[in-house]
């Protein structure tokens, strides 16, 4: 295999992994605080359509990304108010958020179907970004570097800082954290907002970087794969990075096989690959860990009321 193909495979892999990594990293922080937000797919779609609409209207992808993060936060806040302040069931509310995101994005996006915008370009100058093999390191757009920096930041935040410790305490034992005097609900609001912002950015990566064109439901279930990745990573940011790039590889394989036109394998079968891989990975994780979900934050998914 020549190096040109190898370089292009790596570039595709990184691009495919980045939106899932962003969304999953946000969800990881949310789950560490003890909240299960199943609305990742919905928040991603809202971010995708807000980002596209603003980028299309203003011609600025930067403003588009900002709008995507804000849209993600706004939809996440609906979830937060319902589950934290009104103590609604987290699973049901998360599902509602996803159904809402699908509906809202296709309603708002109806006028944009088929429209194109300028793709989010590489950060570094052409000499580096266009270099035949140096572009493996320098040829990516700003979101790729941001996502990697965020993995490091979240990892350090959770393990090395006091606020990170408090956030984990809230997720492991909300009643004790409350008794010591930490604002459980406030901390969870903040975590959910962070998760919403990253999901929004992850969604916008689809509409601004991967396919700079609006299509209905363009995230195609990647939000759910992000949720699975958090389990796969056993709630550790470092392993999340590994998992996201692994999934990037599976999706690149799918694209490469399609491009190569392997006759005996139907394209529909290839399209199943990421979803089947998710099931296989979740199963293998459980096999290795044995029974029980020892890694999950103890208060994950439970409603909190101060007593």
């Amino acid at each position: 295999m020549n190096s040109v193909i190898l370089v292009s495979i790596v570039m595709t892999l990184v691009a495919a992994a980045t939106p899932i990594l962003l969304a999953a990293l946000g969800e990881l922080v949310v789950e560490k605080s003890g909240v299960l937000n199943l609305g990742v797919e919905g928040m991603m779609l809202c971010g995708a359509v807000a980002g596209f609409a603003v980028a299309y209207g203003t011609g600025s992808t930067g403003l588009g990304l900002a709008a995507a993060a804000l849209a993600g936060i706004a939809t996440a806040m609906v979830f937060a108010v319902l589950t934290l302040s009104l103590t609604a069931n987290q699973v049901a509310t998360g599902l509602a958020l996803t159904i809402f995101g699908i509906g809202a994005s296709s309603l708002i996006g109806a006028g944009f179907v088929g429209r194109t915008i300028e793709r989010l370009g590489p950060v570094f100058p052409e000499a580096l970004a266009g270099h035949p093999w140096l572009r493996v390191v320098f040829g990516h757009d700003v979101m790729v570097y941001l996502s990697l920096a965020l993995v490091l930041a979240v990892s350090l935040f959770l393990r090395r800082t006091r606020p990170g410790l408090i956030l984990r305490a809230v997720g492991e034992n909300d009643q004790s954290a409350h008794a010591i005097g930490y604002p459980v609900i406030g901390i969870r609001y903040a975590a959910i907002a962070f998760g919403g912002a990253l999901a929004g950015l992850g969604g916008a990566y689809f509409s601004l970087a991967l396919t700079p064109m609006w299509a209905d439901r363009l995230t195609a279930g990647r939000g759910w794969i992000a949720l699975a990745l958090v389990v796969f990573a056993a709630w550790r940011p470092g392993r999340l990075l590994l998992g996201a790039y692994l999934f990037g590889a599976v999706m690149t394989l799918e694209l490469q096989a399609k491009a190569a036109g392997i006759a005996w394998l139907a394209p529909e079968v290839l399209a199943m690959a990421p979803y089947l891989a998710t099931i296989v990975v979740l199963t293998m994780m459980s096999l290795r860990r044995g029974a029980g979900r020892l890694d999950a934050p103890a208060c994950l998914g439970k409603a909190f009321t101060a007593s």
Partner: protein
Amino acid sequence: MLEWRRRREPSRSMLYLSPLIAVVLTMALGTLVFTLMGYDGIRAVHDIFLTPFLEPQRWPDLGVKAAPLIMIALGLAIGFRANVWNIGAEGQYIMGAIAGTGVALLTYEMSGWWILPAMALAGVLGGMAWAAVPALLRVRLQVSEILTSLMLTYVAVQALYYLVRGPWKDPDGFNFPQTRMFTADQTLPVMLEGSLVHLGIPLALLAAALAWLVLEKTVAGYGVKVVGLAPAAARHGGFSADAVTWASLLAGGGLAGLAGLFEAAGPFGQLTPQFPTNYGFTAIIVAFLGRLHPLGIVFGGVILAATYVGGEVAQTTVKLPQAATGMFQALLLFVLLATDVLVKYRIVRRERSA
């Protein structure tokens, strides 16, 4: 000053009233949202929610859309009661249709009364098989059924595409990606001349009555409730959480599969790539709107069916995009979850402390 105070016991009257409050609030909120988006909001909400009920010629369509929603939601509700979150009903619905269509294609040149029951049986088994995977993985390995059942939905959609574009493509169909039309022996009998009202509608109501009997009047139904509300008590009482997981997923898959087969052998009359219509997801809203109660689900199914029928009306009258229906349905679920607070809390006047 007013303040929220937690009730000692959930309010029974609010339990039944809050879905109605939610419907009214959603109508108000929908009017506001659609007006802000530049449509005639009052007319839009009127058409979505009221026209389907006010114009008798739309009632058959209401029934046709409500039947699959009710059937799927009944199965989901059993699981939701037991904290088994099967959200892949859409996949089980598609698999049921695929399995039933397989029988239809095998019996293409045969005739007989037995063909349709055989297709229905295949539909049930197809849906059950698709739900058995999440059940097995959850019971044996504690893998979240939420994620596996949903992933399998995407797999089912691709399987459908593969079949209608490939091996099952109608040989006389001018290369369109669709199967043969089903024969008369393979199609659900029409109950009302000149409409699409099929046998599935009375059967959905029958299923609701059966589900009510099982859930409310048998020990097994009680077991489902106990496992959901108090897992530890269930263990002491001898109810097996694993058995409930299996039973609720298989029941959910079977009902969704049957609904899928009815849709294929009824309104569609064949399989096409347009077959997945999101009924499996909308049924989640139906289950919650019906308070996970079989009779409530019949009410919920009719309301959500109205949003489909009325959504089509609003497309022509106020040029509302088709996607508006989906957003409106989600809005209803949000409002419903919010009004749940009325069940758990009450508003009291705060006494002024001197």
